[in-house]
């Protein structure tokens, strides 16, 4: 078997055989599903409790100092349990004595203060707002009755569906949320690749040094093949993770697409061209390689994994920095900030990926930045190999920049 393949296979199997790998892989989607379930369940419990409280209220009394409540409305099914009383004091007393479930007091200064008071039997913290919507609806529907036009009332109560047509430089452009789905997914995949694979890679390089295996390894395989094998092994590991995530996500979408309004619509509007896939994969690989090469250099430069983790965090933070100002980039994909981070080695792949999938890169930019990314990858790889060859035998020491520079020059 080819030595590169031997190293790749070992790295891959070593990762996927670990229980912690599967915990980390399954934890994320399971956490989302569990959090969704818990949140949905508790939301439903609260909603049920509120609805129950509202439905069970048989005695709703209202004192209306300004005469805003429409008496005809109180004859309808929805508001049949509402009774008007003359004064506030009587209402409060009925609540105190338990004769009424809720008392809505509309004060004299209602038109200016817009305040009302709700007196109710306590049903717990979450049921506290059970009658707020009811009171709001009672007043607004009462006012609407004055309009006395059924169509207008229907329109008032409906939700508008706007059709948005945006123009940029005289051309219609797509600014819908659908446009963000592909870039969003691409950036999430890139982020997972970056964080998981590079952390595996760092551990793998540090392991050679920490376990004092590097001399035996380097007499059997050249450092270039060893590092490429390690990188491929970690990429294969992350693709396994992605496959699991995508499969779980697909299963989840299949079940919820009809129950959650809008998702089915959004999915049906997404079209991904083969070129988008090719370029997205290209940007991801370049971004991963640049940071991966830096991780190799870091792993070889310090004595152990713990030190390597601290040292590498600087580079990881720099490479995910664009996430913190993603709204600026999305708002103006060709603005100054976007341009600057498009050319900075640690951030360029991610930003270019985002801008490309948003359709904001011109052809010359695509060509120029692609060449630039390849140069970044080659330069960091060359540096990583040198650092690895120089640093991996410095078992207990951090490498000296001065000595490393001398070696580079030699």
């Amino acid at each position, binding site marked *: 078997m080819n030595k590169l393949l031997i190293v790749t296979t070992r790295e891959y199997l070593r990762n996927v055989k670990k229980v912690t790998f599967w915990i980390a892989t399954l934890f994320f989607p399971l956490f989302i599903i569990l959090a969704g379930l818990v949140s949905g369940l508790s939301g439903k419990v609260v909603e049920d409790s509120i609805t129950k409280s509202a439905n069970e209220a048989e005695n709703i009394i209202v004192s209306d100092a300004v005469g805003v409540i429409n008496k005809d409305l109180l004859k309808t099914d929805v508001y049949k349990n509402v009774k008007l009383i003359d004064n506030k004091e009587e209402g409060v007393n009925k609540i105190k004595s338990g004769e009424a479930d809720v008392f809505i007091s509309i004060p004299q200064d209602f038109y200016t203060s817009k305040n009302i008071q709700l007196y109710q039997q306590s049903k717990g913290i979450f049921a506290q707002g059970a009658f707020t919507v009811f009171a709001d609806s009672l007043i607004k529907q009462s006012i609407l009755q004055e309009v006395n036009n059924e169509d207008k009332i229907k329109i008032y109560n409906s939700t508008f569906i706007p059709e948005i047509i945006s123009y940029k430089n005289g051309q219609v452009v797509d600014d819908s949320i659908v446009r963000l789905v592909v870039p969003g997914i691409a950036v999430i995949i890139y982020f997972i690749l970056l964080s998981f694979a590079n952390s595996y890679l760092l551990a793998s390089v540090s*392991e050679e040094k920490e376990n*004092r295996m590097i001399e035996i*390894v380097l007499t059997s395989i050249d450092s270039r093949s060893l590092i490429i094998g390690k990188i491929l092994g970690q990429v294969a590991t992350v693709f396994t993770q992605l496959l699991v995530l995508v499969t779980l996500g697909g299963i989840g979408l299949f079940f919820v697409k009809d129950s959650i309004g809008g998702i089915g619509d959004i999915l049906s509007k997404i079209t991904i061209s083969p070129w988008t896939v090719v370029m997205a994969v290209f940007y991801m690989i370049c971004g991963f390689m640049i940071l991966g090469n830096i991780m190799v250099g870091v792993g070889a430069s310090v004595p152990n994994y713990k030190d390597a983790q601290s040292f590498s965090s600087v580079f990881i933070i720099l490479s995910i920095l664009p996430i913190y100002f993603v709204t600026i980039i999305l708002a103006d994909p060709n603005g100054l900030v976007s341009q600057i981070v498009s050319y900075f080695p640690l951030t360029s792949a991610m930003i270019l990926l985002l801008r490309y999938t948003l359709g904001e890169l011109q052809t010359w930019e695509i060509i120029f930045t692609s060449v630039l990314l390849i140069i970044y990858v080659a330069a960091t790889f060359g540096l990583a190999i040198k650092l690895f060859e120089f640093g991996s035998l410095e*078992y207990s020491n951090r490498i000296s920049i001065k000595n490393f520079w001398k070696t580079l020059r030699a």
Partner: protein
Amino acid sequence: MENIISVKNLSKSFGGVEVVHDLEFDVKKGEIFAFVGPNGSGKTTTIRCLLKIYQADRGDLKVFGEEYSVSLAPKLGYLPEERGLYVSANVLDTMIYFGMLKGMKRGMARDAALDYLARVGLLEKATQKIQKLSSGQQQKIQLGIAIINSPELLILDEPTKGLDPVNRQLLMDILFELNKSGSTIVFLTHQMDEVEKIANRLLMINKGMKSLYGEVNEVRSQFGLNTIHLYYQGEFKPNPDLFESKVEGQYAELTPRPKVTHDEILTYLVKLNMSIEKYEVAAPSLNEIFINVVGAEK
């Protein structure tokens, strides 16, 4: 006889300090070659340069007649001084991995690993994680990795470091077996008793330079038949006017002072309150030579 290793004019510096200076030696096919010298003398650096782990500043270094490259890995076994194991991996997987890196097929590597584990009494540990093994057991695995491919050339840097006497003997037996089956063995050490036991030839270096080189017996005879080996019972009293002495239990190695004869020393010894069990005049031990050479060059 064919040279398996040939080193000519090797020099290597670190940060302006020359660690190996103009070193030259050969290792012949089928021999057990001892590479000795005090700590920091340049032994490990020489081997690292030979195996291209370090780049030599100067010199012509050949292994199997060519500069070392990983294409020669199938013929090489190497146990470095700084050695460890992938502690979180299991024993058999680790051995198979290195077997395959040395060009073996998976099945062959697996068979060889299992044979070796059985030979050293660790077969039942094959599927265990290395971190669960004792340090002695881990050292056996390290040796196993070095010899899994039945190498034509085996280079061992301080192979007995940290081994108990039983495991040291086991290692020696394995080395003899390998040598018998045709492997050339180079071992780096400063344990002179090991050299006397198994080596055919030796190279002693000090401060990166060659001090002694040749067959073990030749090297010893270069230092003359001037050492008295004395085995006794009772109390031994040194006499610095007559000889320098080194005592270990009921054994003493005496080196006469200049112009002092063996008869004078024997006369002195007879007068002591002790019984002499064995009195022998022979070549100095390698240990003595080592101390003399290294001491003289300090």
